[in-house]
């Protein structure tokens, strides 16, 4: 193969991260440029051009570009999507206005809710009705569909239509027929149906997901045209892939598919981070990993058990309060379960009414940023505390691109925390450090409580710019004994794009008693949905023998509200009694008890169809040089127990596999800083990860 390069581009809120990787030599180059939110393709091409220019490589030598983007999320947050019309079942036009009818905060009666994406005057009801079991109770009135769409187009100038019928997950034919009609009569319109985008029970969540897709379709469509054109102009002859959040650990699709499913592009950056944590974890035989990705404005966590990232059927976008579940729009697509962990480096610290510390949720972001950035920010942030504690090097932040001012950090921490709590400066700073770490370990704990995992046995993977500073303490709070800090930890998420396989995930709600699920029934449900996804993968160039199919069933005791995911082993004979055993084993593992007398129900049939993982050679690292890694000594503060200690400061690029490091010490690299606490030992493994043993 003469076209050895791959490019991963991850557009984030502040930075656009670009990674160039040579499949043959394992040479890897990285570039961080500022994002250009008004037109994110500008930042993308600036990053690509600078990366290629600096390496003297032409776009013709690039075989694939993998793109993750926050474009879709931003369109929702900033309410800059298309004008959408909604067609829905007669009697249910107000579902979006009524939400789930509860308040996400018990005591705040001045509470705000997100405005519906499609206002009521752009919704139309049509006659049709499906029962909960998928039977047709009233046929679809196609004339009404036509008239409604015509009116929405002529009078209201909508450019995208969302079709949302009750119980369509159980019988999608009405939505399909309506879509077919609209596509043939109004070929210029974009059309989304709820059964193709989120075929799950619960109307508000499904409709909300559908209108968000419809809202962002035209935007992603235009953006992809621009991307393709820009790449072609640069002589690119390879394949462009979009990174999707759906599938076990994030997956890729070609733009033609992404165009129809923009809702699957939400949150792609954080998911790519979890993806690389899982990839590295698998190779170094850490079976179970807590991915802990702490950046500038936020920290995200993910539980990866037996190399599988945990998954959720629902997440939220555009929350009004970042840490209040229920304050945003629900999106029900299967995806990695990402936890909003709390604060990032830019989170603002203050003393609350209780007289105790509160970190976030407000963030100083990149502008004005933490006080120590000297960009006009004066409020104390987590980064300021980390600098006061001696963990960060003011002259080597982002490799020296940004000079930090320790005096400004001290002043901010003094005023915001030390003075009001009457504490010495370093204690105040350490208090910030401890509080933010506790917040993050609690987020992991609440999650573990819901899902029944024993997180003490997990390795904590700390990455993102601030993750490696905090990871050891988060791990200690969780009684975990090992921390793994990957190489170039601040940009490693973008690497996640490079290792992701092509894949499709699909699920269908089909509720039945376990007894009814004979092996014939099982095949009847699965065969068509699996077959369709395999065809899509083959069309994308994946060889059929490389395709992996994995099936999971959502099951529960009849009467319960939450499902348990039961993985169907390969070559499994799907008899009800075998499925019962699988379910009971999983239930017992999660909740220690089973309920023998209660019948079991199958709820969702899910499948993941994926191609082979792309490989990135981890055992060869661009930028690593021979020589003495010791850069110097810096004093850092480790709380009451240890006080101020002299830490050896190391240059990460001079560590070879097998090196060992004693704590307390600090390891610096361009995109991050890793702290090794007193009494801990660390080694550098064959993949250049710094592995810290806490006990």
């Amino acid at each position, binding site marked *: 193969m003469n076209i050895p390069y791959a490019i991963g581009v991850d557009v984030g809120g502040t930075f656009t991260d670009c990674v160039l990787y040579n499949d043959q030599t394992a040479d890897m180059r990285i570039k961080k440029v500022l994002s250009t939110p008004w037109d994110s393709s500008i930042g993308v091409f600036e990053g690509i051009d600078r990366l290629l220019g600096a390496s003297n490589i032409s776009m013709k030598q690039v075989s694939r570009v993998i793109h993750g983007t926050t474009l879709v999320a931003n369109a929702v947050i900033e309410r800059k999507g298309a004008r959408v019309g909604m067609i829905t079942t007669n009697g249910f036009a107000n579902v979006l*206005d009524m939400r789930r009818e*509860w308040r996400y905060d*018990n005591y705040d009666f001045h509470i705000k809710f997100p405005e519906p994406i499609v206002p009521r005057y752009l919704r139309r009801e049509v006659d049709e009705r499906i*029962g909960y079991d998928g039977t047709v109770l009233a046929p679809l009135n196609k004339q009404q569909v036509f008239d409604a769409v015509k009116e929405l187009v002529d009078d209201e100038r909508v450019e995208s239509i969302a079709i949302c019928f009750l119980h369509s997950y159980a019988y999608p034919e009405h939505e399909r027929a309506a879509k077919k009609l609209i596509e043939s009569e109004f070929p210029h319109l974009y059309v989304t149906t709820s059964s193709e985008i989120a075929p799950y029970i619960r109307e508000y969540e499904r409709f909300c997901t559908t209108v968000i897709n419809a809202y962002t379709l035209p935007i992603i469509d235009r953006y992809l045209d621009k991307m393709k054109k820009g790449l072609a102009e640069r002589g690119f002859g390879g394949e462009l892939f979009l990174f999707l959040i759906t599938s076990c650990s994030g997956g890729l699709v070609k733009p033609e598919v992404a165009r129809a499913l923009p809702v699957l592009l939400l949150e792609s950056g954080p998911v790519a981070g979890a993806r690389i944590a899982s990839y590295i974890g698998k190779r170094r035989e850490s079976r179970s990993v807590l991915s802990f990705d702490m950046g500038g404005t936020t920290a995200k966590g993910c539980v990866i058990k037996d190399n599988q990232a945990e998954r959720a059927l629902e997440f939220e976008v555009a929350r009004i309060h970042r840490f209040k579940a229920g304050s945003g729009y629900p999106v029900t697509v299967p995806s990695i379960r990402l936890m909003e962990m709390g604060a990032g480096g830019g989170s603002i610290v203050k003393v609350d009414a*209780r007289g105790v510390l509160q970190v976030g949720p407000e963030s100083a972001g990149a502008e004005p940023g933490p006080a120590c950035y000297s960009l006009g920010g004066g409020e104390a942030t987590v980064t300021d505390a980390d600098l006061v504690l001696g963990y960060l090097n003011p002259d080597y932040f982002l490799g020296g691109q940004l000079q930090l001012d320790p005096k400004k950090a001290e002043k901010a921490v003094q005023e915001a925390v030390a003075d009001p709590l009457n504490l010495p400066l370093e204690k105040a700073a350490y208090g910030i450090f401890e509080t933010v770490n506790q917040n993050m370990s609690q987020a992991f704990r609440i999650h573990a409580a819901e899902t029944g995992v024993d997180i003490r046995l997990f390795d904590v993977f700390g990455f993102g710019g601030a993750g490696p500073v905090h990871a050891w303490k988060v791990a200690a709070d969780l009684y975990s004994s090992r921390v793994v800090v990957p190489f170039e930890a601040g940009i490693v998420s973008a690497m996640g794009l490079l290792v992701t396989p092509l894949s499709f995930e699909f699920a269908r709600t089909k509720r039945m008693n376990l007894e009814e699920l004979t092996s014939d029934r099982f095949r009847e449900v699965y065969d068509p949905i699996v077959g369709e996804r395999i065809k899509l993968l083959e069309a994308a160039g994946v060889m059929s023998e490389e395709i992996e199919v994995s099936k999971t069933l959502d099951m529960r*005791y009849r009467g319960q509200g939450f499902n348990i995911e039961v993985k169907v082993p390969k070559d499994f004979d799907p008899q009800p009694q075998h499925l019962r055993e699988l379910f009971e084993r999983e239930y017992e593992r999660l909740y220690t008890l089973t309920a023998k007398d209660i019948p079991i129900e199958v709820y969702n049939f899910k499948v993941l169809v994926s191609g082979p993982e792309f490989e990135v050679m981890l055992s060869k690292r661009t930028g690593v040089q021979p020589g003495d890694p010791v850069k110097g000594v810096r004093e850092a503060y480790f709380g009451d127990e240890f006080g101020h200690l002299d830490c050896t400061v190391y240059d990460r690029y001079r560590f070879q596999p097998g090196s060992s490091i004693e704590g307390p010490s600090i390891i610096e690299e361009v995109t991050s800083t890793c702290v090794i606490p007193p009494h801990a030992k660390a080694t550098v493994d064959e993949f250049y990860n710094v592995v810290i043993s806490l006990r």
Partner: protein
Amino acid sequence: MTSDYDPITLGIAWDKLISIVDEAFSVLTHISFSTVLRETFDCSCTILDAKGRSLAEATNAVPSFLGTMKYTVQHFLAKFPPSELMPRDVITTTDPWMGTGHLYDINMAMPIFYKDDIVAYVGIIAHLSDMGGSRLGGSSRDIYEEGLRIPVCKLVDNGKVNELVMDFLRFNVRTPEHVIADINSEVATALYCERRLIETMEEFHIDDFSYLADTIIERSENIMRNAISKIPQGEYRFTNYVDGFDKPVKIACRMSVEEDRIDVDYSGTDPEVDRGINCPLNYTRAFTHLGVKSVTVPELPNNTGFVSPISVHAPEGSILNPQPPRATGSRARIGHHLPQFIWGALVDVLPEKVVAEHGMHNSVNLAGRHIDGTPFGILLMSEGGFGARPHDDGPHTTAAPTNLSPAPVEVVEGDTSLFIERKKLIPDSGGAGRFRGGCGQEIQIRNTTNDRLHCGLMVTRGTIPARGYQGGLSGSRREVLINGKPAHPFERYVLEPGDEITIRDAGGGGFGQPGKRTIVKLVEDVRNGFVSFRAAEETYGVRIDPDTWKTTRVE
């Protein structure tokens, strides 16, 4: 760390206790069975100290249980003194007066032992899908008719389940599998709390919670006192009627704000009645506390300290402090109103903090048989419009003052095989105002099963609507129709196959004079169908041309 917490450790330890009850709440809602627990979260988890004071209460617990566990545990300890308790004793009751006001809630508490001493208690409350008797509703004449009243007893005795209690339940409820499974889920949740509390003590190297408890409670109390002292001192009164069984019930609220404490006195309130709408004192306390907290320190976590500067008095024998054997099944229809009495009393002194009255929550208890043959018992919940705020409209169909989440249409239909013909907003139901009250909704349900459907109605705002504030108008009233005919708000009905029930939920009150509403907002409401052209003209004084959308002010 036994005597001098630094503020950092205090914050971390405090937040950790809150985290534990939130974790436990999440465990309970994930493993429980009945719709009312898993979909609407009608439950709570509390950590109390060795003296029985509440230290942390689950953040998203239903407000009905705000602070009640403290009182329940006192009853438990009166019967089983701490000196006689053993590890893994789980004490329980469904008594409305000791617990949470009606016998469908099962209250439990378990002592937490550390090094042979009781260091804390965990309390778990959950609404069960059935408790026998005449089923949840408002028409019972006394408590005996309502169901099984479990006295204070040990459900689990030193780790061993008391099968006699379980058998009493199995023999007395209609859905024994779910009831027993939900009770087991509560016990599992208590055990979860036990493990996490012991881990926490080891982590902080403490042998008891006494210093932490004192500090949390003292600080919380000080914060509340400080917040109260900012309210202008004086005596504030609000008296009004709310819907009763056959006739409206008078509730008289007198609030005296004196220095840093608030005394709420309901003297003058109507006496208890011989139907199931009496509201026991614990429930009266919870909703009074909710009202006060919402205008003082809504953002801070709950514990005993926050409520200790607030006293609640309701005369014995009044509907807000009824005595056994009065029936209490629908105590919520009275108790839910109380925060609105607090706001009503304070509207002139705290106009920026209060909100107009709400269309409120509605429940219909439905029991029948799915067409697949399984019996079901669900609470069909729906919310009225939320009251308008000093600077904002009231959201449509949003729970208030309590907080519950009705199950989705698709879930209800699947669970029951009933047919919901429509669920939509009612135009002009939100009280007009400079800021409009939220709209109520209409739900129409047909019995498409092969069996009779038993409906227990629990309806408020059928007579007395949600008031607006400062010139804002009232919201619409709630109506329940059975086969098109108005139904009694608290009676039980049987729907034969093919029969229909229609619920028209009430709207929220408006805030400020309708004439002051901006034209832009009014036109938007009319375009969205929340306000009709006619109401725009007659109530808001703006004529809107339906073709051109041109507006003209009219007199």
